[in-house]
């Protein structure tokens, strides 16, 4: 579900830190450097990177294509190759038979089995196309705020890692503690009280 969907999910973040220099240029550089790579012809099972909001299957960050008013809008794309278990089993069985026939043995050692499985998985990964998942992101740089349009844990973790790597800025996820600590304008004394809170029971 992205920005254009009729119903969306949002995980809200604060961005820690600011750039020194021309912001749009720095963001463009980070996006280009960490754009999603094509893995369809590689023996790679997963890739994650930035892509364009308007053309998610053809990443382009030329000019100000990711700038909308005072916002940066782009997307995180995660490509995964899913090799069906039965397909893997079939090819692994065939390869194991070939290997045993070639070496005139009845069994493969544990290490050999694992190495063969890795090889078969890699061979299949080249032949299986990846399935892309696209998650939009809206960055209000002035207010150090990011809305990420997914609540999926794996996508959020990928976002946090990639954002830091791309822009050298940390994302702080807003959840009950961080919202209280960072957004409720607490004094040091109030912050101490917050740290000592324990659950309330409303039942009698």
């Amino acid at each position, binding site marked *: 579900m992205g*920005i*254009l969907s*009729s*119903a*969306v*999910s*949002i*995980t*809200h973040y604060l961005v820690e830190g600011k750039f020194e220099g021309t912001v749009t240029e720095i963001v463009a550089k980070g996006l280009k450097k960490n754009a999603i790579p094509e893995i369809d012809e590689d023996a790679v099972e997963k890739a994650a990177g930035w892509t364009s909001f*308007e053309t998610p299957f053809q990443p382009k960050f030329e000019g100000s294509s990711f700038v*909308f*008013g005072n*916002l940066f*809008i782009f997307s995180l794309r995660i490509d995964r190759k899913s090799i069906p278990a039965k397909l893997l089993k079939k090819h692994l069985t065939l390869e194991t038979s070939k290997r045993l026939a070639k070496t005139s043995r009845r069994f493969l050692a544990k290490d050999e089995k694992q190495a063969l499985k890795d090889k078969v998985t890699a061979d299949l990964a080249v032949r299986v196309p990846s399935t892309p998942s696209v998650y939009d992101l*809206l960055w*209000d740089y002035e207010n150090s705020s990011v*809305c990420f349009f997914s*609540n999926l844990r794996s996508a959020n973790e990928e976002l946090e890692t990639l954002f830091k790597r791309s822009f050298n800025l940390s994302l*702080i*996820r*807003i*959840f*009950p*503690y*961080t*919202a*209280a*600590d960072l*957004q*409720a*304008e*607490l004094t040091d004394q*109030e912050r101490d*009280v*917050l*740290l000592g*809170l*324990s*659950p*309330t*029971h*409303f*039942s*009698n």
Partner: protein
Amino acid sequence: MLDLSVAYNRYRFLGDEFLTWLWYLVENGQDAFRSADPDCMALEIGNRVVLENRKGKSIERITIKGDDAGLEEGKMALKKGALVTELALVFKTGDHEWQFSIKGESLNLSSLKVPGPALPQSPEEMEPFLLDKTQQFYKLIDFIKKMYKSFIKIRISSGWSSKTTPAIKKWVKMVEAA
């Protein structure tokens, strides 16, 4: 600041208490919503409420859903010591409404529908559409931020145990009597 993964689990109860407090305010204190956003005409409970009771050894989860869902069962769960862990809400201004669900543990929003223009029909319409839509997202995010700030200020004050908790307990008790 604490380690965030520790803080996430240690203070997740604050989010559940926040949602329970919001439900109480929906029925008893709509003025608080207008203080957070003068445009707010009403905040209403939507079509889904999830509660969890962690008092026993196991976690009991109660989910109430559907447009005509009666909330009595949820209120009975509150009476037994449950807290709201997920709440569907409708934020209403004079002409528009925002429908959404919010989770207590993460404050994440889901199933969010905001008012706004139809999808852009040309590339030229994209930027104004996105800016308008963003404004609608942030109107709700700011409202929740202000409500949560109000909640935290009350939660860390002496008024929480002397006024708010007794008032919520009284409301929960009335549920049983109703």
